[in-house]
């Protein structure tokens, strides 16, 4: 098992190198002169030259790259022009908000999509099967920011059930003392049930938006792989041996059917992390996505670059975790490694 994890981790290294090269090239592809850009609009030619030397832009490209890698190694992602803060600090304070939202969104979609896919597969061509198909087709057609706005209109404006889509917490509440950065968990640790409810209320709509968005691939994959597994020999044997249909479906079929679904999660995460940016904008969520969007609009490039790099590193790490999880669930993968 350990060798498998190490082997898989080694396979992630080329991806990481690629990611670092691409983010480096993205800064160097900035339109115009990066030195003039980093010096600011009011800089004199002399100041620009100073910035050029300070940033090492007068050196050959390969040396600049070396310097960039060393900076990354020290956790230096540059400073934001608009706030003057180091990008790494800001990303770190905002990351829990994004992570809490994304993970809850994924949880919502798994809780809905997996049972839906299983039910659809056990009753082909039934009403629930058609419902599953409609959900899957609609889910991929709905722009995620549009879903979010519709939910806001219905649940905030029309029904008044949800709070205003303005961030993680109502203004009347103070955030809980930080332990994990996840308000749901921190408020429980601080034993403040009202705070827990308040942050849950803020979270429900954006998490649901993300959930609806990632529902389609998970439901479709669960249905397809359940169908394949249910028609296999070992399920027939289990049925013929007189096991209850619950045991057959849950213990025999489901565990095997989960494998392709877990593989799909990698793709789902790619979409979720992107959709997260849009959802954060709709709900004024103070995460790293809205931070990057604000920086983008202000032509402040260092935060955007830091954001792209962080997202890519997280995505590579997530894929690594998915593969390890795959090995835990399926011993055959372990043997092959």
């Amino acid at each position: 098992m350990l060798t498998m994890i190490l082997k898989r981790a080694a396979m992630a290294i080329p991806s990481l190198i690629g990611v670092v090269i691409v983010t480096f090239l993205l800064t160097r592809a900035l339109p115009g002169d990066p030195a003039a850009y980093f010096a600011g609009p009011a800089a004199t030619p002399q100041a620009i030259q100073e910035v050029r030397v300070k940033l090492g832009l007068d050196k050959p490209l390969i040396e600049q790259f070396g310097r960039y890698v060393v900076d990354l190694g020290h956790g230096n992602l540059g400073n934001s022009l608009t706030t003057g803060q180091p990008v790494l600090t800001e990303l770190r304070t905002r990351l829990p908000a994004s992570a809490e939202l994304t993970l809850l969104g994924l949880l919502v979609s798994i809780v809905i999509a997996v049972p839906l896919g299983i039910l659809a597969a056990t009753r082909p061509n039934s009403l629930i099967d058609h419902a599953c198909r409609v959900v899957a087709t609609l889910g991929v057609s709905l722009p995620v920011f549009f879903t979010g706005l519709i939910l806001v209109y219905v649940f905030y404006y029309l029904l008044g059930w949800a709070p205003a889509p303005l961030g993680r917490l109502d203004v009347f509440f103070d955030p809980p003392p930080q332990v994990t950065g996840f308000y749901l968990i921190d408020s429980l640790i601080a034993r403040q049930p009202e705070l827990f409810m308040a942050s849950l209320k803020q979270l429900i709509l954006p998490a649901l938006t993300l959930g609806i968005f990632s529902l389609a691939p998970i439901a479709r994959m669960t249905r397809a792989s359940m169908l394949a597994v249910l028609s296999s020999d070992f399920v027939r044997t289990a049925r013929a041996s007189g096991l209850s249909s619950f045991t057959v479906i849950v213990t025999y079929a489901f565990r095997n059917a989960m494998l392709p679904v877990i593989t799909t999660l990698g793709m789902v995460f790619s979409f979720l992390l992107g959709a997260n940016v849009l959802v954060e904008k709709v709900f004024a969520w103070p995460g790293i996505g809205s931070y990057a969007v604000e920086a983008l609009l202000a032509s402040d490039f260092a935060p955007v670059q830091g954001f792209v790099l962080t997202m890519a590193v997280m995505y590579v790490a997530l894929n690594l975790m998915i593969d390890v999880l795959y090995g835990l669930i399926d011993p055959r993968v372990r043997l092959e490694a």
Partner: protein
Amino acid sequence: MTDIAATPRRDAALTALLRHARYVIAENPVTGFAFALFVLIVLAAILGPDIVPYNPLASDTAQALKPPSAHHWFGTDQLGRDVFSRVIVATRLDFFIAVASVALVFLMGGLAGVAAGFFGGWTDRVVGRIADTIMAFPLFVLAMGIVAALGNTVQNIVLATAIVNFPLYARIARAEANVRREAGFVEAARLSGNSDWRILAFQILPNVFPIMVVQMSLTMGYAILNAAGLSFIGLGVRPPTPEWGIMVAEGAAFMVSGEWWNAFFPGLALMVAVFCFNLLGDGLRDMVDPRRRT
């Protein structure tokens, strides 16, 4: 004389095409529906600016934020512009972005993938490495980064959307070219003295083409969503240009105060377009490869 000779043959070809189309539509009414919708979208993209009742840019503050009515089918926005006219006129730009980016990635990814699958060796490794690197990013995030780095223009949105779709096209083209590399007809062409490039152009490409076209229609929906998402966060298209993503963004502020039509109709148009392309893509895939039906 040539005209007279050509007409019956052309008629026959047209009848055969119509018959085939009728068969396909009867077989799968959903595809027929999607095709009808597609024709509507193309018509709106071509004729849009000429058929809309109002100037999409003309503001009329006396009529600001009016709900849908007989005069303004989709209501009016905060500057009193007719939302219906804006949604229809926006079709051209959104459709152009999607078609252009899909065509671009078709060229880049298709050619790179076919070359990788056919030649193998270092070509394969280079293309594979590029595709893997792109896949290491969450796609929308990479698109954001590309547009931010190259500059905030519509052309760069097209380019970014094409780049993030590159791995998908390259992989499919590579797989399809790879299985045909040792095929009988390729060997035959090689034995009759054709060069590698000639085989690639006249034997491999025509065979990979239909599969790639299906891929194009399948990714068209994603291309529209991607581009609209980018303009929703304020990249590429600038106001007051009518474009679905930016219209939803502008209408978003009014959603919380109940003026739903501002964001709803452009969002709906976006959804219908994506839905149509997805259905059409599924239908085309069934036609090209009936085994992959789900």
